[in-house]
C-alpha cells in the first residue's frame, strides 16, 4: 500500500490552536456527571464536604487538567509509545503478581506514595492503545486471516490471565470484552467471535473449577439471592430496597433513609447509583443514565469523524471501556449481574478509577482534537 505524501495532509496545529479544538460539549457532559458525584458524596457524608465530596471535586479538577494534557499531546506520539505503555502496564501487572505472592493474599496495588496505582486500571487504557495501533498498522485484507490475529489475542490474553490470577474477575471480564469490541471494530469476522464464544462456553465448567470459593459464592448468590440474605445477598437486596423505595421522584436530597442509616453498603463507592436513585427516584436515575448515553453518543460521533484508523479505534475503544464501567456498575446495583467491584465512572469516590476514566476521556478528546491528522500505516510513514 502506498501512502501519498504531501497531499491533503492536515495543517499542523499549534498548541494554542489545538486548545480551541477541545470538545467543550463533552467536557460539559463529563463535568455534569462529576457534579452529580460531588452532590451524592456530599449527601453520603450527611451534608459534609468531608471526607468525600471535597476530595472528589479536587480530584476531578486535577483529572480535567490531566485530560487536557493528554488531549493536546500529538496523537502520533500516543501511537508511537502505544506498545511501550502496554509493556510498562504488563510489567507492573507482573510486579503486583510477584509482590502478591510474597505478601499474603490478593494484591492489586502499587504504592507510589502520592497515589496508589492499580496496574489493571492502567492496562485498560494501554490495551486500547496497543490494539488500536496493531489494527491500524494491519493490512485490511489481513484482518480476514487467522494468523495476524494471533499476536493481538496474545496481547489480550497475557494481562487477562494475570488479572484473573489476582483474582479480579470484574476487571478481567471488562478487559476481555473491551478488547473484543476492538477486534470487532477492526473488522474481524463475526463467525470468529461465535467460535470463540462457543469455545468459552464449552470451557466454562473448567473455568468454574479454577474460580475462588468467594467468586463461586458470589455467582451462586447472584443466581439465588435468598441463599444468604445477610451475607453477599444482603448487599444486592438492600440496594434493591433502597432503590425501589425511592419511587418515581425519590425521597429528596439527603433524605434517603436506607443509605443514611447504613443499610446500603459502600454507598460512597460502588453503590452510589443506588443512593442517587433513592434520593432522586426514577427521574434522577434516568437523568444520569441519559448523561452517560450522551457521552457514549459523543464518543461515537468523535470516533467516526476521525480520519485515521488508530484515532477511530482509540476513540471508540475508550468510549467502550467507559461504557462498560457504566453498564457493569448499574446492572450490579440493580441486581441484574453479580456483585463485582466496578465503580460508577465520574460519580463513585475513588482515585484510581477517576484517573483511568479521565485519561481515557483525555484520549477521546485527543482523537477529537486530532480528527484530521493523518497517520501512516507504519510509524515511519507518518513522518
Amino acid at each position, binding site marked *: 500500500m502506498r501512502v501519498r505524501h504531501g497531499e491533503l495532509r492536515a495543517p499542523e496545529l499549534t498548541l494554542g490552536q489545538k486548545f480551541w479544538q477541545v470538545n467543550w460539549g463533552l467536557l460539559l457532559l463529563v463535568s455534569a456527571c462529576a457534579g452529580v458525584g460531588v452532590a451524592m458524596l456530599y449527601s453520603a457524608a450527611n451534608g459534609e464536604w468531608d471526607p468525600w465530596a471535597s476530595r472528589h471535586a479536587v480530584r476531578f479538577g486535577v483529572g480535567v487538567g490531566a485530560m487536557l494534557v493528554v488531549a493536546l499531546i500529538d496523537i502520533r506520539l500516543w501511537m508511537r509509545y502505544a506498545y511501550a505503555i502496554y509493556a510498562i502496564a504488563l510489567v507492573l501487572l507482573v510486579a503486583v503478581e510477584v509482590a502478591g505472592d510474597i505478601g499474603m493474599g490478593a494484591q492489586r496495588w502499587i504504592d507510589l506514595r502520592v497515589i496508589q496505582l492499580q496496574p489493571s486500571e492502567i492496562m485498560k487504557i494501554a490495551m486500547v492503545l496497543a490494539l488500536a495501533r496493531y489494527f491500524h498498522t494491519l493490512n485490511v485484507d489481513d484482518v480476514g486471516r487467522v494468523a495476524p490475529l494471533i499476536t493481538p489475542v496474545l496481547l489480550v490474553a497475557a494481562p487477562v490471565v494475570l488479572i484473573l490470577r489476582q483474582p479480579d474477575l470484574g476487571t478481567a471480564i471488562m478487559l476481555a470484552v473491551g478488547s473484543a469490541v476492538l477486534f470487532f471494530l477492526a473488522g474481524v469476522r463475526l463467525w470468529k467471535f461465535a467460535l470463540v464464544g462457543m469455545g468459552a462456553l464449552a470451557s466454562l465448567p473448567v473455568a468454574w473449577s479454577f474460580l475462588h470459593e468467594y467468586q463461586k459464592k458470589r455467582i451462586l448468590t447472584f443466581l439465588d439471592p435468598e441463599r444468604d440474605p445477610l451475607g453477599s445477598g444482603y448487599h444486592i437486596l438492600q440496594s434493591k430496597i433502597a*432503590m*425501589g423505595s425511592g419511587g418515581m421522584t425519590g425521597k429528596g436530597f439527603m433524605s434517603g*433513609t436506607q443509605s443514611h*442509616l447504613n443499610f446500603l453498603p459502600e454507598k460512597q463507592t460502588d453503590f452510589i447509583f443506588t443512593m442517587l436513585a433513592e434520593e432522586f427516584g426514577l427521574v434522577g436515575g*434516568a437523568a444520569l*443514565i441519559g448523561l452517560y448515553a450522551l457521552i*457514549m453518543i459523543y464518543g461515537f460521533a468523535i470516533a467516526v469523524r476521525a480520519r485515521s*484508523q488508530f484515532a477511530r479505534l482509540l476513540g471508540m475503544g475508550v468510549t467502550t471501556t467507559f*461504557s462498560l464501567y457504566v453498564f457493569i456498575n448499574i446492572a450490579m446495583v440493580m441486581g441484574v449481574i453479580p456483585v463485582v467491584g466496578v465503580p460508577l465512572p465520574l460519580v463513585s469516590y475513588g482515585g484510581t478509577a477517576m484517573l483511568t476514566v479521565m485519561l481515557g476521556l483525555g484520549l477521546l478528546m485527543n482523537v477529537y482534537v486530532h480528527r484530521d491528522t493523518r497517520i501512516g500505516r507504519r510509524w515511519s510513514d507518518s513522518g
Partner: protein
Amino acid sequence: MKPEKTRSKLFNRRAALLLGGKMLLLGGLGARLYYLQVVESERYKMLAEENRINFRLLPPPRGFITDRNGDYLAINIQNYRLVLVPEQAKDAGGVEATLVKLSRLIDLPDHDLKRVLREVKRRRAFVPITVRENLSWEEVSRIGVNAPELPGVNIDVGQTRHYPYGPNMAHVIGYVGAVSEKELAASEDPLLELPGFRIGKNGIEKAYDQALRGAAGTSQVEVNALGRVIRELRRQEGQPGHEVRLTLDMRLQDFIGERLKGEKAASVVVMDVHTGAVRALVSIPSYDPNAFSEGLRTEEWRALVNNPYHPLTNKAIAGQYSPGSVFKMTVALAALENGVSRDHRVFCPGYMELGDRRFHCWKRWGHGEMDMVSAIEESCDVWFYDVARRVGVDRIAAMAKRLGLGERTGIDLVGERAGLIPTRAWKRAALGQPWHMGESLVVGIGQGYVLTTPLQLAVSTARLVNGGKAVTPHLTLNHYEDAVVRPRERATFPDVGIPEAHLAVMREAMDAAVNGERGTARASRLRGVEAEMGGKTGTSQVRRITQAERDAGMRDDDEIAWRLRDHALFAGYAPAHDPRYVVSVVVEHGGGGSTAAAPIARDVLEEVLRIEGRAISDAGDAPDLPARGEGAG
C-alpha cells in the same frame, strides 16, 4: 485509498451497531430502574420501613396499693443501676481500665466483673451493659463526682417494687416476679414479653394484676443497620396502672403483727360483719416480699419452703383446722331448726357412752345439768354429743354450708382453700365407708373430719351476728374488672334463712361465753372500751388422747411437743349489743382457745374499737370532709 475507505466504512457500520447495542443496554437498565422504582415500588417501600423502624414497648408504671387510709403498701422505688457503654469507654483505656476505676469507688463482686467482660464481647459496642443494680445514694453520688474520669459510665434509673411494711403485709399484698413460660403463653399482653417485666405472683398483686399493670405505650424508633437508635418517630404513652385501695387498716394490721410476736404460727382475720370488708388479715410467720422483687437466691427460697412454720402459706385463707368448739353454734342452729329447743337439757357427767365407746367432755368431772346457752357458755361437749346424735351429721353439714363453712368464701386473694364439712355421702364417696354414729358425735364438737379456715370462721360468725345475711369477704374498696374501676356498691347480701329468734339465742350464748359467770373466755372481757365482746373459744385436737394419758392426768400441754399440742381458736365480735366487727384467731398448737386465742381476740377488738372511736372523733372535728370509702355499717 480504496482499502482505507472500505476500512472506515466497515468501522462506521460496526461502530454504529455498537452504539445501538449500548443504547439498547442503557434502555434495558432504564427499564429495570422503572420496574424497581415504579412497578415494585410499594413492596420495597414496605421493606424499607421494616428495615428502619422498630417498635418498642414502654412499660407503664405499676399501680400503687394503699390501705383504707391511703397508706402506701406497695410502691415503685427508683432502682439505680450502673451501666457501661463499651464504645464510650474506649477513650479512657477501655472497659477493663474503667472497671478497675469503678471497683475503687464501689463494691464490685468478682463474678459481676467477669459477667461484664463476657457481655462486652458478645454485644455491640453501643449497647449499655448493666454493671450493678440497686446502688445506694452514696454510691450514686460517688460515681457522679468522678464522672469526668469515667466516660461511658452512666447511672440508669429503673423501677423496683417496694413494700414499705415488709413481712407484715406479705400475705395480703403478695409480690411480683418474672413472667413464667406458662403465663407468657396464656396472655396476649405484649408487655409480658419485655425482658425484666414483672407481674403479680401472689396476693393482691396477682388478684388485681390486670388493674395494677396498666397498658403499654409504644415508641416507634428509627434504627440504623447496626440496630442503633437514631431518633424517635412517634410515641404513644401507655396507661399507668390503677391504684388499688384496700379495705385493710394498716395500723390494725401492724398492731396485730406486734401482738402475735410471741407466737410461732398463727393467723387473725378482722372483718366488718355487714359489708364483708376485711380490716386486717394476718398470718405469721411471714416473709419479706422485697426479697422477692429484688430476686431471691436459691438458698433463701429453700429456707422459706423448708421452714416448719410454713411462712409462705397465708394461714388465714389456706390454713385448714378443725374448728373445735367454735363449730358448736352451727350445731346448735341446726338443732334449733330441727326441733330441739333451747331448753333441751342434758346432764353431763364428764362423758357420754355410745355402744361400748366413751366420749369425753373436756371437763373431766362434768358440767352437770346443761341447756343450749350454758352448753355454749361453758362449751360442754356432752350436750353437743347428745344433740349431734339427735340431729345427724347431714343436717349439721347443711347448716355449716349456709354459714359459709366448707367452701371458699370467694375473697379476692389467690390460694384460698375450701376446708371440709363431712356428710354421709361424702364419706361414702371419698373413703368408701359407711358413716358411724360416733363420728356424728365428734362432728358435734367440731372435730374429726371437719376442717375450716380462719376466714371461714370469721365469715360464719359474722353471719350469725349481722342478722343472718350471707356476707362474703373482700379486700378492695373498688371493683376492678380488667382495667375498669368502679366503686364497690354497698352489697345487699341474701338472707341465710335463719329465724331471728334462733340468732338471738346464739348472740346470748356467745355473749355469755365471754361475759357470763362461767364463760370459757371470761378472762378475756374487753377492758377500757365502752363495749363488750361476744365469742366462742375452740380447742382443736391434733391427735387423739390415749386412755393411758387420760388416766395419768397428762393434759398439760407444756409436757407435749409443740407440733402435737392442740390448736387454739377463737371467733368473736364486738360490740356485743350491736355487732360491727368480727374477729377470728387461730394459734397453731397454742393449747387452749381460752388461754391462747381469746386474749388475742380481745386485744384486737379493743384496738379496732379504739381506731373506730378516733375516726369518729376525727370526723367530728372536720364534719365537711366527705366520707371516704365505705362506712362501718
